């Protein structure tokens, strides 16, 4: 972080302190107008950079992975302010593909009302409500999904997570392909998950302030999260009544807020 930015923080912080002395419910009152809020998805594997077709990653299942694809859908963004008020981003515009191979790593939420936001909630995948809107609900997102390998075409639906590569293990010594495609199973199993992340620093939005929330996303959680998903047992998991929901639950724990940049026209 540049010294200049640190300086901006100081000024901001000072501003907040000053205003909070003057009245009770204060800081937000001085934040007026609206602005963009960007969210950066910084993909990694257990603390290391996620590099496609390159590095190998060893997990606690004793499996060594090379990753060729890491794409997922995030959706239904809600921002929560200091008072607990929720701002729900317009649903039709609230679906995004994050794709390492396509270089899609940042989303911009536009026209966010001024506020002092302490948490963000969002979904991993596409909820049934959206899907069941049929033609009207999908918009251009459907084509984006198709173009980024996130359309689950034989189910006329979406892959929420597309995680592919090769692996070896003590029992599988030849590099073997793995494919983890996770999504809802038609009308029979809903794998959409929502998660809430507290922000370590409040994100301030106003006509002059446009923050960036920097998320660290740990792909290791998919197989090595709460429930261990062992590729040597099953390397292709697409529709599995037991493992698919476990993968969905694991994947929902991939996200952590690393830091928040507050300020104007930030570059990061």
């Amino acid at each position, binding site marked *: 972080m540049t010294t200049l930015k640190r300086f901006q923080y100081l000024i901001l912080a000072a501003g907040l302190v000053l205003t909070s002395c003057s009245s009770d419910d204060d800081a937000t009152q001085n934040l007026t107008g609206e602005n963009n809020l960007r969210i950066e998805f910084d993909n990694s594997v257990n603390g290391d950079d996620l590099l496609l077709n390159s590095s190998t990653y060893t997990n606690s299942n004793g499996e060594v992975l090379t990753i060729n694809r890491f794409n997922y859908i995030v959706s239904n963004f809600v921002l929560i302010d200091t008072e607990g008020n929720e701002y729900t981003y317009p649903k039709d515009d609230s679906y995004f593909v994050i794709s390492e191979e396509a270089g899609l790593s940042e989303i911009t939420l536009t026209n966010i009302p001024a506020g002092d936001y302490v948490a963000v909630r969002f979904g991993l995948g596409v909820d049934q409500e959206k899907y069941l809107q*049929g*033609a009207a609900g999908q918009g251009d997102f459907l084509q984006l999904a198709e173009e980024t390998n996130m*359309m689950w075409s*034989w189910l006329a639906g979406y892959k929420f997570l597309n995680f592919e590569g090769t692996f070896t293990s003590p029992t599988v010594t030849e590099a073997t392909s793995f494919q983890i495609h996770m999504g809802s199973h038609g009308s029979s199993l809903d794998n959409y998950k929502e998660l809430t992340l507290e922000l370590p620093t409040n994100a301030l939005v106003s006509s002059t302030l446009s923050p960036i929330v920097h998320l660290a996303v740990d792909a290791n959680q998919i197989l090595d999260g709460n429930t261990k998903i062992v590729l040597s047992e099953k390397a292709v998991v697409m*529709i599995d009544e037991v493992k698919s929901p476990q993968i969905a639950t694991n994947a929902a724990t991939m996200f952590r807020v690393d830091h928040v940049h507050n300020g104007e026209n930030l570059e990061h």
Partner: protein
Amino acid sequence: MKYSIKLALSMVVLSLIFACSKSDDTDYFALDENLEVSIPANFPEMHYDISKNPPTKNGFELGKKLFYDGKLSSNGFISCGFCHEQRFAFTHHGHQFSHGIDDLEGTRNAPAVQNMAFQSQFSWDGGTSHLDLFPIIPITNEVEMGETISNVLTKLQADSEYQRLFASAFEDGSVNNENFFKALSQFMVMMISSNSKYDKYVRNETGGEFSELEKEGLGVFETKCASCHKTDLFTDSAFRNNGLPPYPGINDLGRAAVSGSTADHYKFKVPSLRNVAVTAPYMHDGRFGSLASVLNFYNSGVQDSETLDPILKQNGRLGIALSATEQEALIAFLNTLTDSEYLNDKRFAEY
């Protein structure tokens, strides 16, 4: 209530459109109008929400053109209508397994396309529960149409005829996936088969006089078949295993392919039996060439398994006991389900 308000609103919108275009150059394109969707008196409620996509004259015509257009496939020749032929209630006549691009063969028999607006699950395994999104499955399937949605749209966007048709059918007029799927649905929503001899019989209309044999067949059907082939749609939209021994070399798991659940092994959507006399071959894999073989199967070919429907193993007997006279009567009854009005309806015809 809500619905009639919406209808009223759309009437207002329509009359506004009319009002405006009178002064405009009128020959640009035919004015659009809402099509009446009437629910047959003997049918259950419609599942499709037509307030979200009310069929219009131009939307329907666009949907029909799309349904019969090979542009929807990668080689330009395989249209929806290629596998769904009207004379055979929109099935792929003479094909056990449908073949598409490069003569590649699938592993399933094309079901009839009729009364789709009344159904809640589509394809034999219920891969999708929304009619609008169903076309993604055949279009992107590499043995059916082998295309991508994005490519189809690129082709349509480059075509001035389609630009004009989309503009005439939809308010925003753009050639995009929403309007593409809406138009196809409008066509399929209008495809209602409800004027067979049987329909006329239950509605007490002329032309609905049943013979003694047909009445007897209806009686057998009601006691032995209607628990699954329910209502006047002749399906309960549920997934069930009716005891077909798995097809050698294919082993199609049916609903389990979608749910991932072993409890769904070999379960398939209960098919409608409307127009069944013209939709041979039968079952998801088209294994039976005649209705007589289907009845023989129910009588003596049902195979037990963990997921066999309990209805088919009652009182220590597998399958459904059907005497020769019952079989004869059943076939006479099944023949009353043929709706030649539907099979010959010019509105749905390719040419």
